[in-house]
């Protein structure tokens, strides 16, 4: 294994040959560099995309701080090197290293990947390989780090089950400590102190994994077995060791811990140079397409005081010129007016631009943006998601056209020249009429805008393609076919691109297909991922690195049909590959919601009316132990009424 000094010497030879060498050297303000030899347990957190994107990820920053606050552990960071750097690293025999100490990743006790989106899977494999760590869990032994992963994609961990030793399901703030504690106990590090060689000569890797499997919220895939029915669907996934629970329930924190204050300040330009403060976690809107809204329940809010103080402290400690107040739905934050007032007062005259994403389509949102004194050059973003009444009922995001027209007219008349509207095509049962409605709505928005603000008004329609995600009410539905998508996109292009004031963007059908294979796949997808990676697939989220061929060949080599994963309406009694993982939202609730969608029934905000999704009974004790205003679930008297819905069988 190379020493950090040897790695640095080799790096100096190659760094001037790559784009943006500042990605690979660390040294940022607010990074934590501990003395390697004085700390017992070493953790490396990896965002498997380039530094420019990964460095501002808030989730990893939270975990990085959690670990570095411990005296007995250190946390460092690594990202995916861009292809130019990877080629030189392989040529010069440089293993992937962590930015703080320049120690090879293989020297760490624990490597934690965040997998917020599925197109990072091949990069995760590539990173393990670059680090000289066997890509498959089964090939690792006591000399290798434990590889864990978390993030939204982990709600269906099965496609990555062969490569990740353990998944952390749900929120990571507490479980990461449990994992580190187990590692210390098993490796015998806990009682040892400064100076000594802390690494025991041997420990039993399998025993360590068994101990990890006992932690609530931790899924160790090697202790489970999946069998399949003749039609190729899952028969069952069951634990093969008594230590492994039948169903792994996600972890949550009862109360949001204090937000990170000391964000890493990169020494080069990156995508987001900003302070992000999470004002609220979870969402009560219940949009049926939205995985985040289903898996991050319950809603927990931070107080106005905590948000404003944290923002102030973080802006001071970074010097960043932008502040983002993060949540899935800003308008739903209980004290949004008070928050916006307090923020504008605190930062008056400080040349800070404040970003408040995900605002509801109503004029109040414009008042909020007005108060934040935002530059009107940036455009105003709204997300209607669908444009016909029928579609809006199906997806449970019901905003009448008049509300949209009134709001957008108001935005234009108050000085914004550009509005961005986000839509999706490919919703269940969508027809060309529903897509035509997007065109008609965009035209009305522009026409009405011209009446109040003249010909300078612009509209950007971002139309992405819906992918039905696990753990949502739409997990049963099929993806729209490539042909349909192309036809719908052609309609949009034909009619919207005529108008020079309208800009249109869309997702390539190939990208949506890949996303759906990876998010909806079962354990057999692991071999497809492995083969696609060996055939050169990586950076799948990047246009210039697309390897569609590699994926199709990989499916073929393993005798799997891509359409099985994407274009098949799932039977109502189908056992999903992710059946043994739960975000505490019951399958029966999701199914009931799916049925209501077929009938065009909408459900109101569940702050107003509990629909018994399953969160409250699952976390009843946690809530009882942490009373107060934090949770936004309504009070439910009885221990949550039990909903009993018979799942209809095939052909129903």
């Amino acid at each position, binding site marked *: 294994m190379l020493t950090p000094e040897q790695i640095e010497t080799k790096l100096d030879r190659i760094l001037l040959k790559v784009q943006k060498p500042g990605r690979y*050297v660390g040294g940022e303000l607010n990074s934590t560099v501990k003395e390697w030899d004085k700390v017992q347990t070493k953790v490396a957190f990896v965002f498997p995309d380039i530094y420019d994107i990964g460095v501002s990820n808030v989730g990893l920053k939270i975990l990085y701080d959690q670990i570095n606050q411990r005296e007995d552990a250190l946390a460092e960071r690594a990202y995916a090197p861009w292809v130019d750097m990877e080629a030189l690293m392989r040529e010069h025999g440089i293993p992937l290293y962590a930015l703080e100490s320049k120690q090879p990743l293989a020297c760490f006790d624990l490597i934690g990947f965040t997998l917020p989106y599925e197109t990072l899977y091949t990069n995760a494999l590539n990173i393990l390989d670059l680090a000289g760590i066997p890509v498959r869990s089964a090939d690792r032994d006591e000399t290798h780090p434990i590889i864990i992963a978390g993030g939204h994609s982990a709600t269906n961990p099965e496609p990555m089950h062969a490569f990740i030793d353990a998944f952390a399901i749900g929120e990571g703030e507490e479980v990461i400590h449990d994992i580190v504690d187990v590692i210390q106990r098993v490796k015998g590090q806990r009682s040892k102190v400064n100076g000594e060689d802390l690494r025991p000569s041997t420990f039993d890797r399998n025993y360590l994994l068994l101990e990890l499997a006992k932690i609530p919220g931790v899924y160790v895939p090697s202790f489970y077995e999946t069998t399949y029915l003749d039609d190729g669907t899952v028969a069952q996934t069951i634990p093969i060791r008594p230590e492994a629970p039948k169903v792994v329930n996600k972890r949550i924190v009862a109360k949001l811990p204090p937000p990170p204050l000391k964000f890493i300040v990169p*020494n080069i330009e990156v995508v987001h140079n900003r302070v992000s403060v999470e004002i609220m976690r979870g969402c009560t809107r219940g949009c049926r397409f939205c995985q985040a809204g289903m898996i991050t329940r319950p809603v927990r809010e931070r107080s106005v005081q905590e948000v404003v103080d944290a923002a102030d402290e973080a802006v001071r400690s970074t*010097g960043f010129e932008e502040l983002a107040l993060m949540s899935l739905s800003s308008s739903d934050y209980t004290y949004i007016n008070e928050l916006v007032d307090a923020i504008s007062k605190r930062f008056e005259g400080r040349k800070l631009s404040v970003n408040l994403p995900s605002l509801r389509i109503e004029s109040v949102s414009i008042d909020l943006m007005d108060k934040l004194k935002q530059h009107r050059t940036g455009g105003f973003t709204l997300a209607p998601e669908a444009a016909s009444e029928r579609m809006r009922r199906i997806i449970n995001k019901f905003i009448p056209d008049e509300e949209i027209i009134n709001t957008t007219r108001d935005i234009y008349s108050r000085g914004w020249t550009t509005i961005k509207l986000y839509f999706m095509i490919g919703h269940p049962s969508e027809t060309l009429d529903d897509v035509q409605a997007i065109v008609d709505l965009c035209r009305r928005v522009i026409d009405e805008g011209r009446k109040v603000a003249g010909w300078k008004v612009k509209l950007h329609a971002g139309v992405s393609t819906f992918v039905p995600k696990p753990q949502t009410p739409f997990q049963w539905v099929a993806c729209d076919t490539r042909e349909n998508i192309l036809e719908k996109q052609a309609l949009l292009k034909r009619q919207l691109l005529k108008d020079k004031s309208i800009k249109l963007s869309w997702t390539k059908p190939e990208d949506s297909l890949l996303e759906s294979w990876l998010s909806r796949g079962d354990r057999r997808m692991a071999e497809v991922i492995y083969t696609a990676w060996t055939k050169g697939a990586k950076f799948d989220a990047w246009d210039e690195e697309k390897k569609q061929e590699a994926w199709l060949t990989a499916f073929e080599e393993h005798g799997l049909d891509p359409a099985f994963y994407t274009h098949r309406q799932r039977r109502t009694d189908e056992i999903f590959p992710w059946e043994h993982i739960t975000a505490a939202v019951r399958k029966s609730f999701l199914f009931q919601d799916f049925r209501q969608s077929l009938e065009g029934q909408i459900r109101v905000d569940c702050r107003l009316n509990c629909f018994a999704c399953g969160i409250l009974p699952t976390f009843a004790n946690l809530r009882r132990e942490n009373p107060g205003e934090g949770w936004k679930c309504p009070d439910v008297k009885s221990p949550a009424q039990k909903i009993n819905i018979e799942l209809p069988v095939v052909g129903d």
Partner: protein
Amino acid sequence: MRARITFTKQGALRYTGHLDLHRLWERAMRRAELPLAYSQGFHPQPKISIAAALPLGFSSRAEVLDVRLNEELSTQEITDKLKNSLPKDIQITQVESVEERLPALQTLILSAEYEVHLTEPVEGSDLKRKIEETKQSETLPRERRGKFYDLRPLIERLEMETDANGKHCLFMTLTAREGATGRPEEVLNALGIEPEYTRVERTKLIFKE
């Protein structure tokens, strides 16, 4: 006031380019809560100017910038405020108050001194001969980005030293006026040394009196 700050740029910061360094200083000064003066206009920018771009990969013991502040502060106050606001690879070595009406910093610079450490063994006598040849030559025609120019008049000083371990170090002073800037890697090239086997450090910037 106009303050002049001399600082080092080492370690990881060698791979931060000129524009990014500018941005880094803006943020550092905001963190330090210095009363920055901003330009007028739609996108007000703090008035910071860095004397001379340092090529990527080089370290420096003596970079220089001027910053304009809205209030008079003592140089000690400025140093104290900035001390904890900088990444570890930048250290302030001097802060002075300069005449507001002096011309822009970039126009005051005359030349720059560099130290070049050779990281791979090189035959000393060969190198010495090449250095002498270079110094003796009347002209050194070179091409850079499609433009031909004469490197020779830009080399003001070129010496070498060898330490007890046989490691060589070159010392050069190169002209650094606008439109007439000598680059150390061009000199190394003329000497037949691969820049990737060297560590270059800028040691001094020389300004008009």
